[in-house]
């Protein structure tokens, strides 16, 4: 079967870990993929430079939504400075999609990371904005 739809991705798509909104989040960002209409919003709670809670919301394909679920799970407990450095390679590794995969689907997978960076740096200010 298609290597994209492995257990892990389907599991996170069907049972997302951190779907929802935070009340009064410290940071909230939303990004779209105009090509397919995918939308991801990420809310963050930050205390003493550490991400202490995260939620995501949005709609889109299994890849973008599972990626958001795994990413928000991963960054809770992480220092903001470390989250800012979180790379696309790390994310693809986390969700188990090779970078060599269809570039359209890679864009779906990376949408949550783009959203996270937009939140942490401000929209359009992430250093690797072009790539993410």
């Amino acid at each position, binding site marked *: 079967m298609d290597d994209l739809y492995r257990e892990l991705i389907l599991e996170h798509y069907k049972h997302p870990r951190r779907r929802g909104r935070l009340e009064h989040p410290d940071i909230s960002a939303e990004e779209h993929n105009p090509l397919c*209409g995918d939308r991801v919003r990420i809310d963050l709670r930050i205390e003493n430079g550490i991400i202490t809670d995260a939620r995501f919301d949005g709609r889109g*394909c*299994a890849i973008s939504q599972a990626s958001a679920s795994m990413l928000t799970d991963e960054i809770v407990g992480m220092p903001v400075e470390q989250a800012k450095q979180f790379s696309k390679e790390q994310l693809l590794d986390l969700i188990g999609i090779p970078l060599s995969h*269809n570039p359209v*689907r890679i864009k*779906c997978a990376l949408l949550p990371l783009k959203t996270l960076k937009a939140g942490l740096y401000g929209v359009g200010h992430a250093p690797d904005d072009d790539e993410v």
Partner: protein
Amino acid sequence: MTASASLSLFDIVALRREFPILNQSVNGKTLAFLDSAASSQKPRRVIDCLEDYYRRYNANVHRGIYRLSEEATFAFERARGKVARFINARSQREIVFVRNTTEAINLVARSWGDANLREGDRILLSIMEHHSNLVPWQMLAQRTGAKLEFLPIDGEGRLALDNLDAQLEGVRLVAITQQSNVLGTINPVAEIARRAHAVGALVLVDGAQSVPHMPVDVQALDIDFLAFSGHKMCGPTGIGVLWGRRAILDQMPPFLGGGSMIKVVGLHESTYADVPARFEAGTPAIAEAIALGEAVDFLQEVGMDRIYAHERELLGYALERLRDVDGLRVYGPTTTEMRGGAVSFTLDGVHPHDVAAVLDSEGIAVRAGHHCAQPLHAHYNIPATTRASFYLYNIPEEVDRLVAALHKVRTLFG
């Protein structure tokens, strides 16, 4: 149409062999190409025709005094004649070669629109239009102060014409698709044209999805402009057609300025060529135009009636089989009456991109997204659909594979 009028399965086997690209595997499965509404595949003779031009008689047209240029010019103009006969134009002077449907519509908006529309004039469109028959009119409205009006659709995805006469008030131009690239709906263009002409409005028809799939006769429809693309009708990319009524084209100012579109050029002003040259500035897509002529010959030899009947049979079979898939919703008419072979659908709980990705892993090529019709998707309150679309080379077995793969998607995401 009767079954005997359509292509027999024997014909199809021979016909499929004419399309080299169909003879390949994708992900270990025979390619099932179900995305012809986006762009069709090309028969060998069209591919050969392109190569023949570059190998034997490549030269610019309408300028050389030498043999090759004469031959290229002759073939280019002969292609114009073939296209004219294909849509029953009164004269081949009514055929303007452009890049695609999009450019044809922009040409009319820029040339006719800028010269004729004033603040408060109205343009009537429908909510099922492709962006290429919407955005040029939005831009024209912004330049001139004209207003856009939209025909609604009913629950079956057909144009609701109950208020047409009221909506036509103050309308100078109706721009409407003959066949929706999402819903498959075939619109009653002749009737709309008759009622539009009664109030003095002109009628532009987006034929991108109709001209490749059914007989289209501009005189019988009694319309004013027709736009279509070569790449969706077995021809190459980069060549499209604007047909316009001669009397209207004659009155229209140029679109792009440059070589070929002039009579006499001075330092400060120029006079312009007659149509169609007036609208064909610069070196045209010569090889592509000639190959479009070849594609038209091919389609006519198969027969547009038979192509329409064949797709209608496939469509009927697909609509029936798709009813068996749990949670699947087809958008557009539920019968084959006045409906072409583009079938857009959603599957409960599965994003259209995921559907398309799983189908791809089965060697089935379909399109997922908004298909350049965002307002129509907004009408249904969905971001995207998955679309399977048929052409003359598709077979019932491909519908079976589509349905089987959709059951697989269900299991995977269930």
